[in-house]
């Protein structure tokens, strides 16, 4: 990139240094040459409304940047040349797989990266890894798009001007001389969440060189608060691992066990295996007391709505009933009392297989009562404790650092893979404090809010381009190996940190090897190769720590008036790091189905009191700071609790993620980062939110069916008469069964489908008018009172009806029936009459109303699955049961001259699902898993009475709630 830029004369008038490097589309679009170029290349863009135009620039910007804007060069992504002499180990069109990892909150998420001709296109959980066992979550699935993010920093800059890595090395040399003089007195490192043994080793080495330097850790979401809670409850900071697979009863105090986070996959897997422990009853019963509806609450049999500040009292009452000595009992409402009694009774019946959990965001009192309850219930075997993995013993906090910076004690600040200028609590005034630092270096993927303010921005490699390492939540180490060579002028984090300790040109791999040289047992080379191959280092899981809850007296927090304001990481954008990943922006958030933005979630009672509707702006004031955001009335949210979601309101995330939503960090108090008190007022303005499901009640229909202990099977399906002749019999008949009792609505399947099938991102305005393109939607329904509804998830892909109304409607044979029963879509035959979609009773078809493709030169092109056609404008598309995977399986079986076996074809959604709720296979084979499930008493077809004979069918959900909630 650098060479290309400098080889061209300046067109934007920044002097002889070469064209000005852009740092954001706002800057670009002000450029007259750029505007002229846009008008020439994209005349249609000129007539867009200002918002549409901005959207266009944002989404399409990728290509402009890579094309060099005013230059005439092609991007590296389109100038691929055919092999003259094809390398022996590369076959075009045949994917290669690499075991590596991406990270979330510093924890490794072990993946298998699928690469075509050296380009990673799809990440899936590593099937051999004990944590994921091949399963994944939304962040893992979407990480590959982050690799191709056109807004990544593409070369080092100093105050926004491009420099070379030699300049960087020279400057670090100067800095090192300064540090050497006073043993690094003024040197501070600020590190984001990490578990990398190599980074820890490097920091140790650096601190040995400069003993007076200090390290600070910044975890805007992270496990920091939870470690504080375990310190209070057990006397030492710990990481906690639930063994849900062994539980019979789980009582959760506002703990979204199954919700997004670095441990979601393992927990969801454990929960679902416990849930299916017995064939005829649900194997695990969940009691959930929660303030903000979560996917765990949606799956809980008995759910209590309670404000966040009620949790200590509830936990105390629960503890006293299970035998923990309690001095004074709190007053509970009748509903609360009933819930506690039921939970206690069930826990007693479970005989040591009942686990009590509290969230990592709450008060020490709740955590204390929960710890003591677990000991009283003998739940020791149901959770493991390990020493925290993300911490450096001597590390200070971000608040300490801010104080020191303002006091002028920080000469040099090195920010490693963190974005404190955005994600520091507003009260720390971090951006202002940063001005007082003489020399600042930012190491990060993006020239983000912090990179912008720091003197030096040193771009890092994406995990898929890196040599690094990390640990999964259970401590098992994974060596991160690159699946692609870096295509920008970037270095790994370890290379840059090595520079700080004087190694100028360290090889990326060598640094990581050095870490493991002493740690791997036996022959190093063999063990190293084995670890890279497996995707994890054997026998590295953290050792469990035996602890008992501390018996120090628990101080109940003082009940305060005012609204409980709780902060939550966004379920798709997380702490803001995924703001520029279009797949995650457009992913409907669980329960709200909101895309492209965050909301101030309030309960229905509060909404009624202050008279707001969805989308009305409200002002939330916490101490002296306030923000304005759109309200969302969340059915089942506690009356006095308001939820703010972190991760939005970014200013320098990139073209996709800038200026969407409100910034909750701005009002976040540094001392109460998760739960605080505040006020809320209606403002008077409103906005239209981009939600994908507008209506939430089931309206008395039986889309999601339920069975209960009294009636464990559904009435058998009635044969539906048809005028059509029966289809000729075939050897294979594909079918899918989705178990609604296991689906937690986590969305992993939706992102997996997006990645596998090149599903386009259409942008906020298009979602607003109902044109999202997801082939698979998670329908979400409520039943019952809006104050305390029951929630249901139902993934709806194409039903692949045997008598498909769509096939009858198409005038040109563009949608047809395969001999194996798959309802096919022939894109290049489609003329776009949309009759198929009009006739589809399930409305699972998606239409390319515009040309939603990425521009030809956009780097996102490289993320496409080459086995799936990219659809053009005016064409209908929909779920194909991953037909490319079916065909690949046929080819593989034919090569071996054997019939297809059950499990040969695994659809993308199926392989991603952490709870294994999706089963796919041959329904003509009576021994296949899918056939077995179709014979289950819980089996039913959606809209069966329509006579469409869907091949995608469902297993009813267990209603294991109290009897008075059933029916």
């Amino acid at each position: 990139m650098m060479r290309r830029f400098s080889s061209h004369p300046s067109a934007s008038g920044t002097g002889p240094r070469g064209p000005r490097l852009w740092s954001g589309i706002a800057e670009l679009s002000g450029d007259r040459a750029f505007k002229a170029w846009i008008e020439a290349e994209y005349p249609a863009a000129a007539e867009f409304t200002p918002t549409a135009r901005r959207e266009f620039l944002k989404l399409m910007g990728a290509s402009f940047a890579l094309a060099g804007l005013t230059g005439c060069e092609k991007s590296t992504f389109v100038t691929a040349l055919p092999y003259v002499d094809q390398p022996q180990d590369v076959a075009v069109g045949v994917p290669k797989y690499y075991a590596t990892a991406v990270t979330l909150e510093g924890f490794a998420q072990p993946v298998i990266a699928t690469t075509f001709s050296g380009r990673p296109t799809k990440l899936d959980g590593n099937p051999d890894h004990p944590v994921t066992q091949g399963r994944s979550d939304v962040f893992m699935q979407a990480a590959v798009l982050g690799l191709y993010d056109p807004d990544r920093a593409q070369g080092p800059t100093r105050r926004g001007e491009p420099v070379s890595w030699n300049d960087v090395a020279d400057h670090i040399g100067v800095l090192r001389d300064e540090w050497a003089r006073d043993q690094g007195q003024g040197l501070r490192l600020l590190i984001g969440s990490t578990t990398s043994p190599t980074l820890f080793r490097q920091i140790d080495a650096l601190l040995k060189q400069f003993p007076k330097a200090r390290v600070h850790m910044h975890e805007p979401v992270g496990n920091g608060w939870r470690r504080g809670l375990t310190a209070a409850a057990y006397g030492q900071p710990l990481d906690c691992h639930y063994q849900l697979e062994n539980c019979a009863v789980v009582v959760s105090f506002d703990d979204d066990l199954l919700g997004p986070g670095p441990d979601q996959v393992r927990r969801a897997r454990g929960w679902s295996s416990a849930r299916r422990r017995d064939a005829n009853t649900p194997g695990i019963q969940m009691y959930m007391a929660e303030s903000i509806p979560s996917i765990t609450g949606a799956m809980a049999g008995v759910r209590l709505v309670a404000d966040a500040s009620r949790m200590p009292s509830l936990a105390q009452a629960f503890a006293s009933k299970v035998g923990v000595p309690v001095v004074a009992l709190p007053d509970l409402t009748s509903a609360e009392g009933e819930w506690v009694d039921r939970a206690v009774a069930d826990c007693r019946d479970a005989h040591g297989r009942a686990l009590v959990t509290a969230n990592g965001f709450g008060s020490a009192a709740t955590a204390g009562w929960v710890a003591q309850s677990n000991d009283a219930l003998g739940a020791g075997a149901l959770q493991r404790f390990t020493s925290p993995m993300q911490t450096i013993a001597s590390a200070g906090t971000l608040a300490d650092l801010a104080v020191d910076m303002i006091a002028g004690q920080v000469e040099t600040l090195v920010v490693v893979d963190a974005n404190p200028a955005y994600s520091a609590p507003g009260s720390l005034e971090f951006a202002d404090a940063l001005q007082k630092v003489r020399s600042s270096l930012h190491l990060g993927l993006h020239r983000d809010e912090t990179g912008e303010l720091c003197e030096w921005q040193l771009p890092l490699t994406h995990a898929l381009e890196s040599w690094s390492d990390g640990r999964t939540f259970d401590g098992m180490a994974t060596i991160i190996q690159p699946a692609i060579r870096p295509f920008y002028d970037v270095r790994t984090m370890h290379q840059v940190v090595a520079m700080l300790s004087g190694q100028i040109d360290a090889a990326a791999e060598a640094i990581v090897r050095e870490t493991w040289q002493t740690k791997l047992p036996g022959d190093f080379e063999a063990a190293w190769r084995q670890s890279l191959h497996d995707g994890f280092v054997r026998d590295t899981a953290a050792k469990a720590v035996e602890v008992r809850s501390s018996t120090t007296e628990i101080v109940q927090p003082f009940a305060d008036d005012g609204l409980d304001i709780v902060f939550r990481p966004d379920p798709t954008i997380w702490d803001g790091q995924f703001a520029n990943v279009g797949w995650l922006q457009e992913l409907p958030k669980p329960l709200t189905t909101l895309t492209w933005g965050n909301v101030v979630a309030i309960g229905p009672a509060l909404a009624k009191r202050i008279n707001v509707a969805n989308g009305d702006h409200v002002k939330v004031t916490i101490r002296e700071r306030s923000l304005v955001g759109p309200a969302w009335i969340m059915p089942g949210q506690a009356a006095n609790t308001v939820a703010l979601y972190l991760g939005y309101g970014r200013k320098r995330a990139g073209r996709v993620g800038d200026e969407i939503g409100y910034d909750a960090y701005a009002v976040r108090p540094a001392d109460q980062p998760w739960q605080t008190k505040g006020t809320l007022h209606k403002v008077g303005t409103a906005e239209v939110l981009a939600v994908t499901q507008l209506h939430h009640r089931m309206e008395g229909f039986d889309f999601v069916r339920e069975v209960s202990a009294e009636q464990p099977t559904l009435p058998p399906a009635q044969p539906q008469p048809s005028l059509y002749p029966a289809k000729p019999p075939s050897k294979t008949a594909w079918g899918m069964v989705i178990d609604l009792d296991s689906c937690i609505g986590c969305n992993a399947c939706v992102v997996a489908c997006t990645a596998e099938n090149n599903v386009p991102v259409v942008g906020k305005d298009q979602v607003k008018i109902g044109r999202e393109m997801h082939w698979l939607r998670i329908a979400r329904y409520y039943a019952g009172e809006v104050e305390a509804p029951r929630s249901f998830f139902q993934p709806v892909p194409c039903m692949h009806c045997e008598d498909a109304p769509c096939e009858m409607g198409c005038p040109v044979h563009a949608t047809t029936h395969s001999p194996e029963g798959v309802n096919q879509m022939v894109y290049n035959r489609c003329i776009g009459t949309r009759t198929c979609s009009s006739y589809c009773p399930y409305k699972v078809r998606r239409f390319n109303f515009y040309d939603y493709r990425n521009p030809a030169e956009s780097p996102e092109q490289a993320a496409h699955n080459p086995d799936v056609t990219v659809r053009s404008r005016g064409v209908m598309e929909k779920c194909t049961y991953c037909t490319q995977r079916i065909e690949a399986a046929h080819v593989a079986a034919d090569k071996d001259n054997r019939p297809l076996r059950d499990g040969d074809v695994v659809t993308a959604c199926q392989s991603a699902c952490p709870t294994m709720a999706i089963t796919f296979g041959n329904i003509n084979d009576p021994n296949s898993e899918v056939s077995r499930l179709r014979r289950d008493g819980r089996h039913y077809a959606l809209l069966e009475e329509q006579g469409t004979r869907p091949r995608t069918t469902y297993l009813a959900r267990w209603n294991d709630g109290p009897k008075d909630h059933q029916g």
Partner: protein
Amino acid sequence: MTDRSADILPADQSIGKVAEQLAGIPLHFPARRRWLAAMIFACALLLLLVISTAALFTRGVGIWGINIPVNWAFAIHNYVWWLGIGHAGTLISAFLLLTGSEWRNSLNRFAETMTLFAVICAGIYPVLHLGRPWYLYWMFPYPATMGVWPQFRSPLEWDIWAVLTYLTVSLAFWYTGLIPDLAVARDRAKSRGWQIFFGITALGWRGSAAHWSRWSQAYRLTAGLAVPLVVSVHSEVSLLFAAGQIPGWHSTIFPPYFVLGAAFSGFAVVAIIAIALRSWFGLENLVTDEHLDLLGKVLLATGLMTAYGYVAEVFDALYSGGAHEMQTLLDRIGGAYAWTYWGAIVFNFIPLQALWWRRVRRSGWALFLISVSVAFGMWLERYMILVTSLYRDFLVSSWDGFTPTFWDWSTYFGTIGLFLVPFLIAIRVIPMISIFDTEELLHEEQEEKHGA
């Protein structure tokens, strides 16, 4: 009818005068300035259509307000509306010709002309509607190298054939009916240009008895073809909806309901045009109050039959007991688009009731306003049938809404331009009331008078 025809035209006018009057309209156009103003207005609308179509073809159907689930809206809705309007022309001309209702003679020419251009307006919509209109030809069974044929089970495929057949027969019928008049115009034309134009278009008509007999056979045969086509085309259009399983569409009442609705809206537009032309060109002697009276009655009758369709539809939903049908019924009468349902009922059927009174039927202005109300009401009805069924179909999770965009409206108003421009040209260049038919009718009436 026959006894009424005895005095539908004032008998005290000379046949030659009538011919002079009618053929003179194109030859010595009486209302040049008004025509020019109307033409400029119509051209502006047509320009809007051109711009809208250009935008559509360059950017895609995304410029409209459609989405999933409402992926059919204005294009199909206006297609049905225009096609419905077109039917009245054929019905008036062909059906009444075959039943020997001579009163049609003052109305048939412009009603047929209206049909032709309304069908053209309807016909462009299925093209505009396509996601990839450049592949329209795939709907035709041409010998493709891949051996792929159209999918003949699709109502859209039937639609293409139905509409093209209908357009062809309408054109043939219209032109056949025009031949004798073109000859009259040729004979009276003074300028060389008009003489050549009418000379060619009159196909050498000399008015011999043999000509008349052949012509009469051909004309009646085409009429005999056209009448069942009206029924088949709009029945077929209704199957576009009824063949789908969507609640509110999936009903056997649809074919007759659509045909009657089409006739209803078509007669309303015929009345609008008749009244406008009559006052414009001073044709009160030929389009008499008696004609208006008859039009009013037909309008009332078809209106009541359409109303029966509404009742039957509600009954259907209630009788079926299907939860989704009931849901759609409730959405229609009380949902977000209830205004289209009630609007359709009010505009279609409330002013219509005034037509029970003879004085209202014979009053040009009253009939005009009622007809405008009906045309608008039927437009709302088509909107209602499309949107209220699609926006909330089976699965609650896919429910959404529909808001037309500027381009939806501009395309629709543009087609009004597409209708008006050729129509205005037609009234400028061809006799708008059938000369020979009127002469014949007048002659018969006078004969009868003499005989009496």
